[in-house]
């Protein structure tokens, strides 16, 4: 079974009793598939690769010649990276922003994960009136552009909630690193509809007999959720975790509004945008900056990839 490669349009008739010729042909086939897929993957990477090469070229070279001239006339410099990594000033060091990014990202991934899996379980396996409508409503909320939510949410944090002149919730009044809490809150809100949608898709396809059996044994919903559902959906959790991680890590807008732009709270993206200078005159730094910010998401993806692929698989099995 390990050599089964359903190549599209290959038109090779597999016979009931695969003979030697067929096996050879199949191996050839899988070799073409390998070759084609690697070529495509390389093509896919060229634009990024071009930027990568550019990040090692001197400023005037980037602005006047194409990155491929690097191979005929290699002019190598680490200056761009030096400026990005070690330039200091009133805005502080890059490491500070790096830590901010981590402090923002980790809870912003965990909260929606937990809340959405609880919600998705309830929507899939607890029988209550109107659950389909709740699900559809949450699903539809995906379309609300987060830009339109910025002002009301900021108001919620900075002035609290007042209904008919009565203060129901006070303002948060957070300073410096406490503002992380606002960013966690905002990211959680914006992530939930997609998270519920994705996780519901996997949870609702778990075999019903499993739940039924557990119910008969007298297990409560929390128990089923903890002991049966959670282990089964870890791949889906990993999948959503990666997407949310990438999204939060790369976000600029939400961080700018809710964390501010100082080195106490602003993430890497804010600092990188700033590095281009007030009039955009230092944009060659962006080439190096882009790679500095890619490193962490890439490590996360590569280290979770195995787990992630194995995991999704459990979800989409349907009896």
């Amino acid at each position, binding site marked *: 079974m390990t050599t089964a490669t359903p190549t599209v349009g290959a038109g090779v008739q597999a016979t009931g009793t695969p003979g030697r010729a067929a096996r050879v042909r199949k191996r050839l086939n899988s070799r073409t598939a390998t070759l084609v897929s690697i070529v495509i993957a390389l093509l896919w990477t060229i634009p990024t690769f071009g930027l990568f090469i550019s990040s090692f070229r001197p400023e005037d070279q980037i602005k006047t010649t194409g990155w491929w001239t690097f191979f005929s006339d290699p002019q190598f410099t680490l200056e761009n990276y030096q400026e990005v990594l070690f330039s200091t000033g009133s805005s502080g060091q890059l490491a500070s922003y790096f830590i901010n990014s981590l402090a923002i990202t980790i809870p912003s991934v965990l909260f929606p994960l937990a809340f959405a899996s609880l919600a998705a379980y309830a929507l899939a396996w607890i029988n209550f009136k109107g659950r389909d409508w709740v699900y559809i409503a949450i699903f539809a909320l995906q379309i609300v552009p987060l830009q339109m939510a910025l002002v009301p949410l*900021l108001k919620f944090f*900075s002035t609290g909630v007042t209904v008919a002149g009565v203060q129901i919730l006070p303002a948060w009044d957070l300073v410096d690193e406490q503002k992380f809490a606002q960013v966690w809150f905002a990211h959680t809100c914006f992530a939930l509809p997609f998270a519920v949608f994705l996780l519901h898709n996997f949870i609702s396809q778990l075999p019903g007999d499993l739940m039924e059996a557990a119910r008969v044994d007298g297990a409560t919903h929390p128990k089923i959720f903890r002991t049966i559902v959670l282990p089964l959906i870890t791949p889906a959790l990993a999948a959503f975790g990666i997407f949310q991680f990438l999204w939060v890590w790369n976000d600029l807008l939400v961080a*700018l509004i809710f964390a501010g*732009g100082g080195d106490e709270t602003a993430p890497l993206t804010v600092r990188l945008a*700033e*590095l281009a*200078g*007030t009039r955009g005159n230092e*944009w060659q730094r962006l080439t190096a900056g882009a790679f500095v910010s890619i490193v962490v998401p890439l490590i996360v993806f590569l280290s979770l990839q195995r787990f992630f692929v194995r995991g999704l698989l459990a979800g989409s099995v349907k009896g």
Partner: protein
Amino acid sequence: MAFARSRQALAIAGVLGLALGVTACGTGNDKKSSNASKPECAAYEKYQGHDGKKVTIYSSIRDIEADRLDQSWKQFEDCTGIDIDHEGSGEFEAQLGVRVDGGNAPDLAFIPQPGLLKRFVDSGKIKEVGADTKAMAEQNFTPDWLKYSTVNGKLYGVPLGSNVKSYVWYSPKTFKDKGWSVPTTWDELIALSDKIAASGTKPWCAGIESGDATGWPATDWIEDVLLRTQGVEVYDQWTTHGIPFNDPKVADAVDKAGTILKNEKYMNGGFGGVKSIATTSFQEAGTPITTGKCAMHRQASFYANQWPEGTKVAEDGDVFAFYFPAVDPSKGKPVLGAGEFVSAFADRPEVQAVQTYLASGEYVNSRAKIGDWLSANKKLDINNVPNPVDKLSVQILQDPKTEFRFDGSDLMPAAVGAGTFWKGMVDWINGKDTTTVLNGIEGSWK
């Protein structure tokens, strides 16, 4: 870093103190107590009495220029004990609205568009400047400048930095080698352009690509030409919508600008044809001057920062700028420029103290010494301005013959000035005719 730590502690303590309604003196032995007794602090005496207070400033100024800003008020902070917390953002114009509407306004903002300033005044968010600040502003700035931050007779902001936009950048070295001379009238400018074009070099280069502000350099062109062909009165009517945007006088000016901007013989040295103006970034638009592929580039004084490293900016150097000549020099010397205004969203005494300080002679001279900056502040001593182009700008601004006008696109409603006007100019460069473009912009101005 240890300093940052204590500043942080101070900030937390300060805000908590305010929230609890106790005076900040109660927060104990601040490490950063004011050094009010030092001799150099004498100049700051009138700003004292706000020890330990924090004032937040929001602006569009980032990176190196933000560092210079922090440096410029360092002594003020030390002497008064006021902690100025500046934050710059590339999304300033959009984000300021979000913060203000979201109830999280900064104490002070440096607003570069009088149109935007007026919007916040209309919605009652900007506080009228205090009496001290007003006195300082009226003492140091001409009424011409103050009128841009005056709404219904009340002053809502004080001018800070400025720039001069009516410049043409050129290479003195090349001009000398080729025997070209700096033109002083429009006709001379065209004659020179033809001469250069005949010699096989494209005389002009331009670029209007600027991220989400693409188009603005072309609006400056139009404004500069309109000031020259029609004079300041028509210009004022146009920016306030006293005459329609597509008035024949305006169309005439646009076409006149087109004789240079949309002339394939003149454009676009080092980059290609006329259409390449649309995709060339304004930052690199003038750089072909250094390689001799282009002779002239009309851009503001701040373009001095855009030249490749090692380029000498001086009257006898690699590049310099001359005044964009008037059509009829006898009719006066119109100058297009811009600047930013310091407006307050809070009226706490320490905020007013900082606002007053920023309008003072002490501040502008302190900032100017650090470099790459100038102001229309009358107290600015030209000897404190290191950069030769900035010196020239200060001379122009302080010249009594100068008729200064603010960048029109900053005066118009944002939907026009930062919207359809910019986009219209992009379409215009890209081949659309003048009438269609102007009609479209007029249609969007309601």
